[in-house]
């Protein structure tokens, strides 16, 4: 029997309206995925491809233009604001910047008590106890409650941000670049902490990041975004070992190597232009030989067990030539 996923996203779309001669921006164009309990889905891809917008739309911080987001079996997209407020304790957000995401004039104790009060998660007389518990959970000394954010290092601040997200016992945590501002040792500690908390509390993570090595160390499954769509989705190890979509391949090929001679040689080589077309005619048949207009099925192909690839943005034989002189594109 298949257990119902914690989160189920179907054909999610976000369009930012046109303004002052600027056309509408279709930031997310039909994204679908499931996230099970205790699972991490890594979300990687091109800068500007819609990862943050997807994360915000899942959390209803950005209202989607279309599509469905179901959390714990309940549809969020048309929920009344009162109900949505109540659902918020199940879903939390951890952002990149440990410097600006904490209020500078609030003590650690105040920062952690706030969500407890807003969601009435624990009675007022138990709040101090819960704050101490949260600090130990992220391996900070409960004695730091009276200190201010600027007294902490970047890594410590990120622990406080995580503690704040966990205050209300969420089921889903959307992490948007949670470690990219930290040094490699601190990164490793936070990654360790996130995976330990997942084991202990059964959390599910939607983990958005650019560092593909960090994502690999946490993700069970991986989604790769390009141009507002997921172009590849499946078991993380499988995609890392046998990427199928040309964009995924170019992404994995571009990971910088921490070896000076190799990395210099690589940058000196002519940029390996991926020649990925952004605006394409509905190809029939597509690169997998299917005529989608005839079959009416989505442009989505299973290439291995649970491993799916989109036939959007697939270079054609001639695409190389016109991609090369696209210039500033």
């Amino acid at each position, binding site marked *: 029997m298949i257990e119902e996923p914690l989160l189920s996203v179907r054909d999610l779309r976000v369009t930012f309206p046109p303004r002052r001669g600027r056309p509408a921006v279709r930031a997310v164009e039909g994204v679908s995925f499931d996230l099970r309990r205790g699972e991490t889905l890594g979300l990687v891809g091109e800068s500007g491809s819609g990862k943050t917008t997807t994360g915000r739309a899942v959390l209803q911080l950005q209202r989607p233009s279309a599509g469905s987001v179901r959390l714990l079996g309940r549809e969020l997209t048309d929920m009344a604001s009162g109900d949505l407020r109540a659902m918020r304790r199940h879903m939390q957000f951890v952002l990149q910047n440990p410097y600006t995401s904490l209020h500078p004039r609030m003590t650690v104790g105040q920062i952690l008590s706030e969500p407890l009060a807003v969601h009435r998660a624990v009675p007022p007389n138990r709040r101090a106890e819960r704050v101490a518990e949260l600090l130990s959970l992220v391996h900070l000394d409960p004695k730091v409650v009276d200190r201010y954010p600027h007294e902490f290092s970047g890594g410590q601040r990120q622990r406080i941000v995580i503690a704040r997200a966990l205050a209300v016992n969420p089921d889903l945590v959307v992490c948007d670049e949670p470690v990219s501002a930290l040094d490699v040792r601190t*990164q490793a500690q936070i990654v360790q902490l996130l995976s330990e908390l997942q084991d202990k509390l059964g959390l599910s993570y939607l983990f958005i990041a650019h560092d*593909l090595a960090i994502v690999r160390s946490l993700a069970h499954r991986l989604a790769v975004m390009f141009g507002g769509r997921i172009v590849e989705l499946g078991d*993380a190890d499988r995609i890392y070992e046998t990427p199928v979509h040309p964009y995924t391949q170019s992404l994995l090929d571009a990971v910088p190597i921490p070896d000076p001679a190799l990395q210099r040689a690589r940058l000196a080589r002519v940029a390996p232009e991926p020649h990925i077309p952004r605006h394409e005619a509905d190809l029939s048949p597509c690169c997998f030989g299917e005529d989608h207009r005839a079959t009416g099925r989505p442009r989505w192909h299973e290439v291995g067990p649970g491993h799916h690839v989109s036939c959007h943005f697939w270079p054609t034989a001639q695409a190389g030539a016109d991609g090369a002189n696209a210039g500033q594109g």
Partner: protein
Amino acid sequence: MSDAGPLLQVRDLTAAFGRAGAAAPVVKGISFDVAPGEAVGFVGESGCGKSVTARAILRLAPEGASVTLGGRVAYRGRDLLQLPAREMEQVRGRRIAMVFQDPMASLNPVMTVGQQIDDMLRHHQNLSRRAARRRTVDLLGLVGIRDPASRADDYPHQFSGGMRQRVMIAMAVSCEPDLLIADEPTTALDVTVQAQILRLLLRLRHELGMALMLITHDFGVIAGMVEQVFVMHRGEIVERGAVDAIFRDPQHPYTRALLAAIPRIETARRSS
């Protein structure tokens, strides 16, 4: 080598928060040189003082703070720490440009991205409004923003994190500085756009002889971009050397610990 002295010579630089430097210093007397056209890299743990050092060169303090500086920062032989404010204004942005770590804090939220780059160009280069906008659109294209002419009319919050970071880079290189200080310039970029930006910086180095001071946590990035590496720890430089030597044969235990912690893409998550 006599006339080719260092472009930048930093000696016993100290920085302490507070007006009279009341707090304990966070940069504790560091010294280094950057030769014309040279690229140097700074690595070290979060909070060790890399950004405070970078800002100190331009006599800038983090938003809302005041910092007391000590020591000497000589640019082409003149001590920037002693320079009259008006002359310092000429150096900033034009001779020495900086990409700040937090792009959102350094962009004006109520001006379009294009206006901000236009203003910067017109301020430093005396361009007409139309010429400035043409150059702005070119620069945005150069850093890989698609549809640059229409996206120039967007406000910063309408850009993604990585797009904002690229705007900062475009602004910093717009005046073809002698020295570019780049504080974590590519953290918000995917690796293909990152490679494009790194190649752009290398090209500017070769074409303009621009020197580069690169601060990053990413050892893959530092590896391909710089000749010298400085490893900072708690406000001090604890190790310095040629990039190949630092990677091959690190001496200081802290450097070794950092190198050992580099995440490897071959490592899958531990199965539980």
